[in-house]
């Protein structure tokens, strides 16, 4: 289920009447109208142009983890608005709105289960929650996911999606870069793999920390991945950006990824990978 569908389902009146909106999905890339059911059965990938639509944690867990094998992990409590930040709106109100829309606590959720029979803890960042932005909540959830993986002797797999750091938490959001890096060090100390799957979009401080530190780096086709924003780069260099710039295939060409993997192939690819990296422990 996409986050949009879930939002709609949260409003019973609209959900019960099957509105045309609810029945059809319009592809953001090619504009094709697709039966929602067909679109979701196709893992929220456009059957016509193969565009990988952004999906949230629940849809991802359902797609990646073996049916009936998984449970979501509780998100540790953090200070909601440590700086009492307000711009045109109060930050607390923005968080409340994001929670109401997504039904989630913050922009990163974890689940523990199996992938093709292999134990794994999976974290999924939700772009629908304030652009997936990294603040105290995301940092705490990341650490929790890693520590659960260590307790369960399982790899930690993160699906990244973020516009970057959460500005409303100021320096505390920036400090999630070293914090998540420490978490990865704990996982390495425990001899467990850290696998990154970058999804559209992964940019800013998230890319410049835990998204680029994977033992193995995967990305979904055509995902936007980069450090600096394209408009910032264009205004700095004052020239047109190259074709396909900052897309997954471009990063693969430039040596930043191990593979670009279609959403349909992800469970098998991840299962095979865990099989390679964790074999000794399976046999032990």
């Amino acid at each position: 289920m996409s986050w949009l569908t879930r939002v709609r389902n949260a409003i019973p009146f609209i959900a019960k009447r099957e509105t045309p909106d609810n029945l059809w999905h319009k592809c953001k890339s090619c504009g094709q109208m697709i039966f929602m059911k067909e679109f979701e059965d196709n893992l929220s990938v456009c059957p016509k142009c193969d565009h990988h639509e952004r999906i949230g944690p629940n849809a991802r867990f359902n797609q990646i983890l073996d049916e009936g094998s998984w449970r979501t992990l509780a998100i540790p409590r953090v200070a909601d608005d440590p700086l009492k930040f307000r711009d045109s709106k109060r930050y607390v109100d923005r968080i409340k709105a994001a929670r109401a829309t997504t039904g989630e606590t913050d922009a990163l959720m974890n689940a523990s289960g199996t992938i093709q029979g292999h134990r794994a803890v999976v974290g999924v960042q939700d772009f629908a929650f304030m652009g997936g932005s990294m603040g105290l909540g995301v940092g705490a959830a990341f650490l929790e996911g890693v520590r659960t993986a260590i307790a369960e002797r399982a790899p930690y797999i993160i699906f990244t999606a973020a516009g970057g750091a959460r500005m409303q938490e100021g320096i505390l959001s920036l400090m999630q870069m070293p914090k998540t890096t420490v978490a990865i060090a704990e996982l390495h100390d425990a001899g467990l793999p850290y696998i990154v799957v970058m999804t559209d979009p992964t940019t800013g401080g998230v890319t410049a920390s835990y998204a680029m530190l994977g033992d193995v780096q995967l990305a979904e086709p055509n995902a936007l991945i980069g450090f600096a924003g394209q408009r910032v780069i264009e205004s700095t260099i004052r020239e047109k950006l190259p074709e396909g710039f900052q897309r997954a295939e471009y990063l693969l060409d430039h040596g930043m990824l191990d593979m670009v993997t279609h959403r349909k192939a992800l469970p098998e690819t991840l299962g095979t990978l865990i099989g390679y990296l964790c074999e000794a422990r399976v046999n032990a």
Partner: protein
Amino acid sequence: MTSFLDFEKPIAELEARIADLRETAETGIDIDADVARLQVKSDKLLRETYARLTPWQKTQVARHPERPHFKHYVAGLFDTFMPLAGDRAFADDQAIMGGLARLKGRRVMVIGHEKGDDTTSRLKHNFGMGKPEGYRKAIRLMQLADRFGIPVVTLVDTSGAFPGVQAEERGQAEAIARSTQQCLELGVPMIAAVVGEGGSGGAVALAAANRVLMFEHAVYAVISPEGCASILWRTADKAADAAEAMRITATDLQRLGVCDRIVPEPMGGAHRDPAAAIVSLGDALNAELDGLAGLSADELRRQRRQKYLSIGGI
């Protein structure tokens, strides 16, 4: 002659009057008393202005063109300095400099951003905006220091890492992530001093240290106030509001557990008396290095990890 910032206009006017009087004096009129009176007034105004700088004013002080930079600290702080260069893969980034040095006889590996201070040197140093090869040079120097038991001192002064096509192609994000990781893995003491601007990931990559020092008027933020304002307020004109809201000053960061020590600046900011600023920084670095001396590699790593795990905790 100091270039005055916008908010220093009343001080600039007083200083101009003093200069005028001095010029008149050369023609034979005795003005000592007048000059002395005005000087007292000007000093008082400077002291009062700098005692209550707003976060946005501090940002301007931190970026002041005459504020001392890496090369001034290197020349003033250390007994000796041997620059080292290159990432051994692509290039030698002039925005991030480094080398071996002695601080009051003690060996250190010093690494930092250099912004440059005139058009030619600013272009040469890319305004202190590091590229992947700069961060990879930093990693190499940190590893070298680690192998030979040399403490690492970084001087942070950047508006951020460079946003460019080639920088992205060569893995700007990866280089920053690995540099941060290298800081956290060091088995030697690491001290970071934000001497001017600490801008985002490009700063943290050299600042995930045991102890983080900030100059009194330095700023350290997740994004520039202008950048934050243009995203959240939809106009860069609200930079002062964004600077206020983001908590970017040394006192704010000390309260939040990010900054461990505030280094005092000479009256009116480091740019008014670079030599005094350098002495002040040297004293702070020595005290911090003394504090970490004798700790085992494991203990240094443990303390460093703990610092970043506990920031922002409730």
